[in-house]
């Protein structure tokens, strides 16, 4: 054993260029579907509608602007983030994959080019203020666009004269980007890393404060329900292509015997569990593909509709397949949420329940650390929380499940620990 290394081993087997596939695919689908199926007028008008919609939860861009325009939005945001990753020469680690897939997922419902830019600006201003490199805050800001609806809500709902509204919206976004880095880091302590969507929790707190201020000025912020309800094969096909690509890429990169993949199940998944380091990048991509396919099968099994929010849920689960999630720690949570939904009389095929099940996997570390039974209970608890906390922040926090998950983890984990024998 050589213990005299002072040279760090670089792990660079997933290249940024391998992710170019995604913006290219999104833009091609967007242009192709937009021009040849929807027609230029609907396509262009849809894109404008996406940019100027308030984007409060739940605003499905597929319903607002159509499929073509939505894919252009997703492709543009994917390209923008990849450009930043490349510019700052960041490693494609597990957390980077999780952040990238979360961002592109939520570009189907909530995030657009107008409402994310001010938050990025705020983050860069924070970095300048603290004299740190912007690359140090990029992950937080990528996740931090969870609060992008506040930019759109203030800018485009006629609360004030238009120009003033736009200025206030942009300033609000910059402010959020500025405070998000220190706040999100601080809030990790509340749940000790058992809630993977920590930014969701931090955003929920920030969103609650902002919404309370707005409501004090009689500006009402309330969730909406704009959801695409039709069945379109193109949405399912693109998901399948995505996960087949990840599987092929994973098999190409991986050089270990496949049986070693199953070592992933020994990891509980608590932050920070980076599978690209622990089991290798190849197996991480394979795990992402497996989780993605599993989610698709689940949605089809409950006869759900593949729409913007559901795509976001599937892509986010898959993204975190490189950063803490696997089937063993996700399934108990999902079964718990499903059981809760059945118990409380919810329609299992509804978009609301489906995305609650998918996003509940933010609590995967609870099941991974304490076992499937505790994970199941956490899932049931999550179902009760997520259906009640959205009104607190008024729907401006896209990661509502992350907020609920943080509350569940912060409440539940200390109780479990208190009962553990020492």
């Amino acid at each position: 054993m050589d213990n005299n290394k002072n040279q760090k081993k670089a792990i660079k087997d997933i290249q940024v260029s391998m992710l170019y596939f995604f913006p290219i695919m999104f833009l091609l689908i967007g242009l192709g579907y937009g021009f040849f199926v929807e027609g230029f007028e609907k396509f262009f008008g849809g894109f404008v509608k996406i940019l100027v919609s308030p984007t409060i939860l739940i605003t499905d861009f597929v319903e607002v602007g159509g499929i073509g325009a939505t894919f252009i939005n997703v492709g543009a945001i994917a390209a923008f983030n990849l450009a930043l990753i490349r510019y700052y020469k960041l490693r494609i680690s597990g957390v980077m994959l999780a952040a990238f897939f979360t961002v592109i997922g939520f570009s189907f419902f909530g995030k657009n080019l107008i409402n994310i830019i001010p938050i990025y600006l705020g983050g860069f201003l924070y970095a300048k203020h603290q004299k740190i490199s912007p690359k140090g805050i990029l992950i937080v800001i990528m996740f931090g666009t969870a609060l992008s609806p506040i930019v759109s809500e203030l800018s485009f709902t006629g609360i004030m004269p238009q120009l003033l509204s736009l200025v206030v919206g942009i300033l609000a976004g910059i402010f959020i980007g500025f405070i998000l880095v220190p706040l999100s880091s601080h809030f990790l302590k509340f749940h000790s890393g058992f809630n993977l969507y920590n930014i969701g929790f931090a955003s929920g707190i920030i969103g609650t404060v902002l919404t309370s201020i707005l409501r004090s000025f009689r500006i009402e912020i309330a969730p909406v329900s704009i959801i695409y309800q039709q069945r379109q094969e193109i949405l399912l096909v693109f998901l399948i292509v995505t996960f087949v690509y990840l599987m092929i890429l994973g098999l190409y990169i991986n050089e270990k015997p496949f049986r070693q993949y199953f070592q992933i199940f020994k990891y509980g998944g608590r932050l920070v569990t980076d599978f690209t380091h622990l089991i290798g990048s190849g197996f991480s991509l394979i795990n992402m593909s497996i989780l993605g396919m599993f989610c698709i099968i689940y949605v089809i099994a409950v006869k759900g509709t593949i729409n913007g929010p559901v795509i976001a849920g599937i892509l986010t689960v898959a993204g975190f397949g490189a950063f803490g999630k696997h089937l063993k720690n996700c399934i108990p949570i999902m079964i718990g949420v499903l059981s809760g939904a059945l118990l409380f009389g919810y329609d299992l095929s509804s978009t609301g329940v489906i995305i609650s099940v998918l996003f509940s996997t933010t609590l995967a570390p609870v099941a991974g650390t304490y076992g499937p039974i505790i994970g199941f209970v956490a899932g049931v608890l999550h179902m009760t929380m997520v259906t009640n906390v959205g009104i607190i922040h008024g729907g401006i926090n896209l990661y509502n499940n992350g907020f609920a998950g943080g509350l569940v983890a912060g409440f539940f984990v200390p109780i479990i620990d208190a009962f553990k024998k020492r």
Partner: protein
Amino acid sequence: MHNETKKINLIVDEITSLLMGHGAIEIDVRIRTSDENTVIKITEYESKLDNEFIERMQENFDIPRQYEVEEYYWQLTSDNEMNEDMYLIGTMVDSGTIRKADDGNLYIEVIRNK
């Protein structure tokens, strides 16, 4: 650098907590800072750690420094007894070595550049 002292303390806390969690009974810690870097030297006397564990720790020290991970996750502490992964520490240091000498003591040295 932002929160530098707290981050140094966290690194020391994580490593010593890990050693004590595995039966360490006597540990020395030495920290030397300069304008260029901070060097942390930790010695565990009569270490009971096995080679497999030491290799795993060394793998974590070999991770390239990742400012984006550090800036976000550095406030996570291992207050949960089950978390033994030193990955976060690995992302916060520029180099690290760990070796068990013939005298049975464990010598750890990590360097964090400013």
